[in-house]
């Protein structure tokens, strides 16, 4: 039934902590999950530098200054590593200079880049390049977070007769952790149009004295929302090719 047999997890505009490369890690993780848990053939290619693409969209002159290179078209082995054509803007990493890229620290910083998802021509070109797959892209915010306050936890107590009881104890705690806020955008590789987008939010907090690496927290939080992502994708069989209207 589905018109999509292949999926391209193109890349993400990511921000938040510098400890985790949200673009690279999310792309890798989703590809590996889709490979093992979906029937779609996953296109294995370089991660698109979407921030640079968004900057180029705003500075077309800079993009046009890039020399054009020509490369042979893909041989159709869509689940093998494919070399994208350089004519698709943004695929030359040096196209945007670092000073053009503002650091993304919170959701508001993402706004200047989000127009890239509505760039139908760009996504259509990417779609043509990879034989019209379903394209998965979006934004990923992974930010450190600290919260202090009264926390209720259960504590074992033993009375004078040695009987065990569990009682709720309220204590003041300082906790720190991370918030993961991905927005997955599904694009039709044939038309370049956005088919569906979905926002997620997960957070985790640890005791302040606990030292958990950012990458571990990232995977912990992604683990929680991967089932929802996969289920969105499976119901995408129809939504991916048809548009429900209000």
């Amino acid at each position, binding site marked *: *039934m589905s*018109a999509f047999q292949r999926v391209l997890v193109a890349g993400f505009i990511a921000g938040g902590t510098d400890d985790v490369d949200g673009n690279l890690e999310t792309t890798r993780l989703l590809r590996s999950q889709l490979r093992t848990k979906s029937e779609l053939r996953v296109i294995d290619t370089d991660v698109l530098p979407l921030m640079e693409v968004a900057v180029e969209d705003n500075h077309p002159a800079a993009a046009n200054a890039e020399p054009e290179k020509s490369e042979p078209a893909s041989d159709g082995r869509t689940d093998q590593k494919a070399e994208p054509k350089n004519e698709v803007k943004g695929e030359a990493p040096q196209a945007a200079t670092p000073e053009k890229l503002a650091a993304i620290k919170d959701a508001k910083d993402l706004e200047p880049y989000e127009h890239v998802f509505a760039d139908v021509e760009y996504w259509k070109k990417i779609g043509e390049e990879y034989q019209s797959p379903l394209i998965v892209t979006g934004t990923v915010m992974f930010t450190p977070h600290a919260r202090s306050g009264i926390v209720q936890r259960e504590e074992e107590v033993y009375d004078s007769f040695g009987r065990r009881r569990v009682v709720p104890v309220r204590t003041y705690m300082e906790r720190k952790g991370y918030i993961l806020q991905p927005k997955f955008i599904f694009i039709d590789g044939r*038309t370049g149009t956005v088919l569906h987008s979905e926002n997620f939010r997960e957070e985790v907090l640890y005791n302040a004295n606990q030292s958990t690496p950012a990458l571990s927290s990232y995977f912990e939080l992604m683990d929680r929302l991967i089932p929802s992502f996969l*289920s969105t994708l499976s*119901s995408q*069989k*129809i*939504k991916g*090719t*048809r*548009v*429900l*209207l*209000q």
Partner: protein
Amino acid sequence: MRMRFTIALFLLSTSVVPLAADARSDAKKQVEFGIAVAQRGLWREAIYRWERATQIDPKYAEALNNLAIAYEHEGDLEKARVAYEKALELEPNNALIKQNYELFKEINDRTTRKDSEDSQDSQDTQSQGSQAAGTQVSQ
């Protein structure tokens, strides 16, 4: 008498527009609920909602479009075709409905063609098999 008739006609004409607006608003609620449940994979419930929407407001092309998608999802392709065609009759210039219908036709035609080819292949195989079996029997 004539005055009364004029007043009655005026009242009727002013009440028709809000009634139509109410119908669309009621139907829209059904459509929105249908979308919410379809996104959770509850397509039968979605069909019920969108059928209700088209009963409330038979000129609601978007509801017919969604109904067609749901029928398609449930494999009821004939009903899907009818719903798409009704939706397009109501809104012939709606690009999204047109796109949905084109994709439906493309996949439906391909499936139908494949089914008929498979059925032809299986008939050929059966015929060869029975010939072979017959040959074996006769041997």
